[in-house]
Each structure stands twice: as C-alpha cells, then as structure tokens.
C-alpha cells in the first residue's frame, strides 16, 4: 500500500543519499587527516572532484567494449537502488517490497560483478589483478553479510529491511546478545566491502597493492565520476544500514511526517560519528597482507554464525 507521505519520504531519502554520500566521504577524509596530524582537505572535496570529472572528456582504452562503458551506469544504478531500500529516514519505503535484505546482498553482488568485469574488459594486468582480488574479498564477505541478515531476520521474523528496523527500533527495549556478534561481523564486512583499511587502502598510489582502485584505473571523465559517486553511495548505504540495524533510534515510523524531518539531523549526527570512527579504525590499522583477508572475513563469518547460534539457543523462546 503506497501512501503519499511514503512516496515523499522515498524520493527524499534517495535525494538525500545522492547529496550526503560525497559529504560522508569528504568527512571521513577530513577526520583521517586530523587523526594523522595533517591539515585536512576541504570537506566538499568530493563534490569538487565530481564536478571536475563530469566536465572532463572520457578517454577510452582501445580494447574497451560496450560493457566497459555501461558498467559505471549499472554500478551507479545498483548503489542508488541500495540506498533506496535501506531505511535511512523512515521505515515507510514504497521501494522496500522490491527487494529484501537478501536481495540487497544481490544488488551489491551485481555491482561487484560488473566492476570486476569492467576491470578485466580492457585487458590490462592491473584490471585483472584487481578483479580477481575483488572477487576473493567478495565471495568471503557475502556469506558473512547474509549470516548477519539471517540473525536479524530471525529476530524480526522477516527479511524485509523496514520490518527488521521497525522491530528493533519500536518495540520495548530488549537486549539481544546476538546483535553484538552480528554488529561486529557487519563492521568487518563493511570495511572489506568498501575497500577500507585494513583490507584495502583507498588512498594508495601503489598499483600493485590495489583492489578497488586497480579495477577502475582505466576509467576517466564522467565514467570515473559515476564510479566514485557510486563508491561513496556504497559507503553511505553500508553506514546507514549499520546505523538502521544496530542504532535504529530516531528513524521515523510509518507515515509520521514530523518524525521524518526530525530524523534528518539525527542521521547526519550518527553518520558524522560513524565516519569519525571509521577514520579512527583506518588510522590505527595497517593494511593486512592480501592473504590475511580470508582470515579477517572468515572471522566475520564465524562471528555472524555465533550471533545466529546465540539467537537460536538463548533468545528464541517465542
């Protein structure tokens, strides 16, 4: 059942995601600079970057096929859809029935496949190198993310994200130990999926160590702008997902318009704190050897499974 306020909320959430995502990336960059005792780049740097890239011509590699040109749009579309499904401001999302938590994993997976294919498409060794490393990280991160969602779905008795968030946010306060395990696992997966330290280094110039950056080395102009924007949308989607699942307070229920407006500053505040913590994690950690990534994500998977078991054995008395 689609309500008017639901539609407004949905459109508003997407617009906010498109606007806030680069800001979040800029904020994380600023915090990281401060924590390393550097003077920080401007907060709006990602916007300047997008503006610059959209105004530049595209240089295409000789071997680039139509897949290479289509991939940025597909990836960008996937990330916008992901941001539309995740309850950022309100749980009344008309798009939500289109995809539940499991399908969200699929949306991220689709974007991953296209970026890896695009990286391999031009046939440079770095694209292939990045593509296969991305798939290594991805195939380990996905099961862990699914396990996190299973735990939450068991709590809410539904795989629909708005239902899960509503259950966690608006029922009487019950402490779920399983959530703690799921939360840590989700943090691990988020770091890996968003190409952050300790799995990848978004700031590196060393082409041989890159994962995400290696795949997009051949992109330029508006294609690169879309990919950069999609990367910040992905970070935004993961951050909002984490906040909605583990700190759901303040997200507007149903069709309460006032609560929707009130949810915005709260979301910004939560994202600011989250971004600072992410910068903190990136500052105190070194990048691990690439073959440690399976251990790291294996740990995430084990924690998620533990969460599920805790839920099954200790909490499920309904």
């Amino acid at each position, binding site marked *: 059942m689609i309500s008017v306020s639901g539609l407004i909320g949905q459109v508003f959430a997407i617009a906010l995601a498109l606007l806030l995502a680069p800001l979040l990336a800029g904020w994380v960059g600023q915090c*990281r600079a401060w*924590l*390393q*005792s*550097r003077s920080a780049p401007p907060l709006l740097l990602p916007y300047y970057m997008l503006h610059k890239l959209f105004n530049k011509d595209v240089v295409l590699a000789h071997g680039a096929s139509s897949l290479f040109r289509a991939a940025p749009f597909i990836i960008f579309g996937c990330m916008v859809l992901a941001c539309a499904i995740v309850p950022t401001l309100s749980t009344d999302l008309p798009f939500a029935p289109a995809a539940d938590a499991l399908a969200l994993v699929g949306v991220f997976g689709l974007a991953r496949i296209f970026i890896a294919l695009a990286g391999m498409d031009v046939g440079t*060794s*770095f694209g292939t*190198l990045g593509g296969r490393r991305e798939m290594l990280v991805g195939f380990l991160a996905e099961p862990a993310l699914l396990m996190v969602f299973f735990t939450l779905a068991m709590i809410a008795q539904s795989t629909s994200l708005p239902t899960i968030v509503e259950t966690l946010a608006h029922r009487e306060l019950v402490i779920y130990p399983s959530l703690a395990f799921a939360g840590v696992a989700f943090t691990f997966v988020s770091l890996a999926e968003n190409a952050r*330290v*300790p799995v990848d*280094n978004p*700031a*590196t*110039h*060393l*082409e*041989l*160590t*890159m994962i995400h*950056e290696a795949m997009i*080395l051949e992109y330029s102009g508006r294609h690169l702008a879309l990919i950069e924007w999609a990367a910040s949308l992905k970070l935004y989607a993961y951050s909002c997902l984490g906040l909605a699942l583990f700190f759901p307070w303040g997200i507007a229920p149903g069709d309460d318009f006032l609560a929707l407006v009130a949810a915005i500053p709260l979301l910004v505040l939560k994202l600011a704190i989250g971004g600072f913590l992410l910068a903190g994690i*990136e*500052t*105190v*950690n*070194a*990048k*691990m*050897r*690439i*073959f*440690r990534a399976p251990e790291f994500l294996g740990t995430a998977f084990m924690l998620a499974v533990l969460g599920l078991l805790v839920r099954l054995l200790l909490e499920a008395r309904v």
Partner: protein
Amino acid sequence: MHFFDDPHIDFAPQPGQGAPIWCGEAPSGFALRHFAESVRRGGGRIAAIWGTDCRRTGEGFHLHCVFGCDPGHLWVGLDLPADAPHYPDLAELFAAANRMQRTTRDMVGIATEGGDQRPWLRHGGWPAGWYPLRHDAGDPPEFANRPTDYDFVKLGGEGAHEIPVGPIHAGIIEPGHFRFSVVGERVLKLEQRLGYQHKGVERLFGGADLARGAQLVGRVSGDSSCAYAWAYADAVESACGAAPPPRALALRALMLERERVANHLGDLGALGNDAAFAFGLTQFLRLKEDWVRLNAKVFGHRFLFDRIVPGGVAVDVDAAALNAIVEQCAAMEPAVKALRALYDEHAGLQDRFVTTGTIDRDLAQELSLSGMAARATGVLLDGRAHRQGYTPPPPYAALGVRPATDERGDVAARVAVRFDEVFESLRLLRLLAVGMPAGETRVEPAPLPGGRGLGVIEGWRGEVIVGVELDGEGRLARVHPHDPSWQAWLALEFAVLKDIVPDFPLINKSFNLSYSGVDL
C-alpha cells in the same frame, strides 16, 4: 703488494686521506679473469666496472674494475686494444657485474667476450653503434622514436603469466619497468628494465673543470648528494695530491650523517605508509622537515647540495650552529624512539614487515651487496667502522662507529637497521659537533694533468664510488659515479621471489633504490 695470493697483479696503495684503496694493472684479460676468480674465492665482491676511451692519447681503451675486500677496495685497470676492445665476462663470477658490463658496452663500446649481450641503458631509438663516451662520438644523432624491443626472460607453464609494471607509475616516483612473472599472486620471477632516467651525466663531465664536476656529481642521485660529492672530492684530492684540513673532514662527516638521518627518517615514514599506516608517514615527515630546515639554516641548503667541494667544504659553521645541531639531536632521539616503539608494537605493521622480502647473508655476499641492505642480512660491512684489517678514513677512524646489523634479512631487518643507524648517526653528530677541530675549511687543489683517483664513501644506501681521470690540461677527462643501487637492484629481484605481488611495493621501499644513480 699482492692480494688473494694472486701473482698477476701488483698493487700499490692510493695516496690520500680517503678510504683505503689499492691500484693495480692487469697485464691481460686472462689475468683479470683469474684475479676475479681469486677475489670470489676469497669472499670479495665486485664494486664497480666502467670503461674509458683513451684513444686520443693513443692507448686504446681502458677497463676499470673495482673489487671490494676486507682491507678496502682494489682498483684494477686493463688496457684494451682500440681495434678489438673485448674482455672476459665477469658476470659468471659476480652476478652484479652483468648490468655494469652491459652499460660499459652501451656507453663506451667495449664488450665482454660472450655472456649477456642485451643492451642495458640503450633504449629504443638509441642507435646500436653510437657510443656516447667515445671522444669521437660527436653530438647525439637524431633518435628515431620507436619502442624498446627488449628480450625479457619468459617463463612458461600452467597459469603463469606476466604483469608489466611501469615505467609510468600511479604515484610520483622515478620511472622503471618491472616485469613480474606470476602464478596468481605468487611471484615466480621479477625482471627489471631501467634506464628511463638516462640523462648523459657521464658525458657532461668530459672537459669540465673540477668545480663543475663537483656540482654535477652532487646531482647524480639527489638523495645521496653529500656521499657523491665527498667520494668525488676524495678522488680529486688523491689525483691532485691535495689534503683537506681536519675541520673540513669533520664538517663533511657532519653533513653526510645528516644526509643519512634525513633519508632514513623519510624512508621509515614511507615504509609505514606503504603498509597503509599513514600516521607513521606524517610523523616521520614532520621530523624530517625539521631536520632539513636546520640544514638550510646552518649549511644554506636543505639537501646539502654543493657544500662539499674538492679541497674541503664550501661553508663554515659557527659555534651557535653546532650548538643547534647538538640540541636538535637531543630532541630527535626521544621522538624517534617513541615512533620506533610504535612501529615495533604495531601488530599489523610487524605482520607486513617480518619475513617479507628476505635475502640471506650468503645471497647478499653472492650479489656483492653493500650498505644498509647488506647489514640487514648480517654482513658486517660499513666503510665508517673498523673491522678486521680495515681502518676507516678520517674523521671516522677516531669516532668508533658501531655498525648496525640484523640477521633476518627481511623488511623488518632493514627497518631495524635504519632505526639503529639513525641513533648511531645522532651519537656521531653530537661527537662531531662537540669535538669540531678549529682551523681552515678548504685548500685549493691544483689540478694535476693526467692524474687519477678513486673515492669511496659509505652513503646512507651503501658505498658510493667515484672514479676520476684528469686530462693533459688538468680538466676532467672521465668521471664515473657508481651508486650502490647497481648491486641492490639485483638483490631486489631475489628478495621478492618468496613473496606475493602486493608485497612488492613494501619490499621495494625497504631498499629504496636510486633510479637516477644507475641510469646515469
């Protein structure tokens, strides 16, 4: 006198105050080869090879080989006829000789009999028969713009493929090409192709006066400017029979140690950054910036260019400046100690450093490695420190330098050696500043026509060698600057063998070799 019980070559000590060097002439190619075998058996190493065109004075070509051994360096010459300038291949005995021989062929046109005949510095458009260091070479011909056709060693087998990297990199670094043969992430072989920084610096020395030569040599590899300038000054002073005053020598050591500390600080930060620990980089860069600012204040140049000249030094320092240096050392030590504790206790960083990029002591000796990288494998080789049969040149002889070594040979060992050397250099700097002798800072060396000399200085990377020959008018006829990176680049090819592709940048940074210094 004779070395390694080899009767063919008679050596005489080189005069001067520099590092101990003995000069000799090989009567024939056979004798050179025989002597090289003796050096190898005796645990020596190849230090440098270059060639000179002497046809103007009617002597054909001349080959220079410098061998390193326990007492010092042996400078062996070999006359080659003008019509058939060939000599025996030494790369079979010393792997590190390979690229030096190929460069000698590319630059002067004197080649080995057999062995690897691929070009080294000669890239794409450079015509094969044009040798820039021959006196009749003339101006460079018009070079056709065509790609390099270089015969890389190919590996076959299931799943093996190549990753070409560079010469253009994603960061702002010097250009070099690395050809990795890999299976998955595992490195099977690394082959380097350098020479993209070739700028004809050796040719520029020809006909220059001594002062111009000092300027040029300090710019061969900017991070080792002091080491090059001092090695050149040693060579010129030996060639001209000049003796720099004690205060000049102490000031040179002061600058060399400051150069060493500056480079180690920068590299230690960069090593953290390459493991995505950017916090380390910013902290070390701040310390390095403080350090080079005091260089600018005291010596007038952040990187100490043109401060060391033949005959002495170009700047004098007053008591207040020496005091500032002592104070900075006192402030630097706890700061670096704190950062060392941070590096040592950071599990993630240590996980990247330990067992990565290992070369053992035997391999280091096999590859004639010198300097910091060699000491990180447990080879006790430091031109500033006493060892059996070796007395370091002044002012180091009186300082009692304690060489830093580590047995592990991995990135962690090179990090540890760098830290230890920073602390040792801080100690030396204080000793030098406090005990600075009074007196003159410079004598003017009178160019001696036909003179020649060799200088060896332990730079921060390893031993920097400069060979100088003067012409009949007392101008520079031929200068060969030799960077320790010649040997260390080869060691890097071996260091990466047990590791995976994404560890290469870290291993590379732990050596931090010079491209400019070998591309000449």
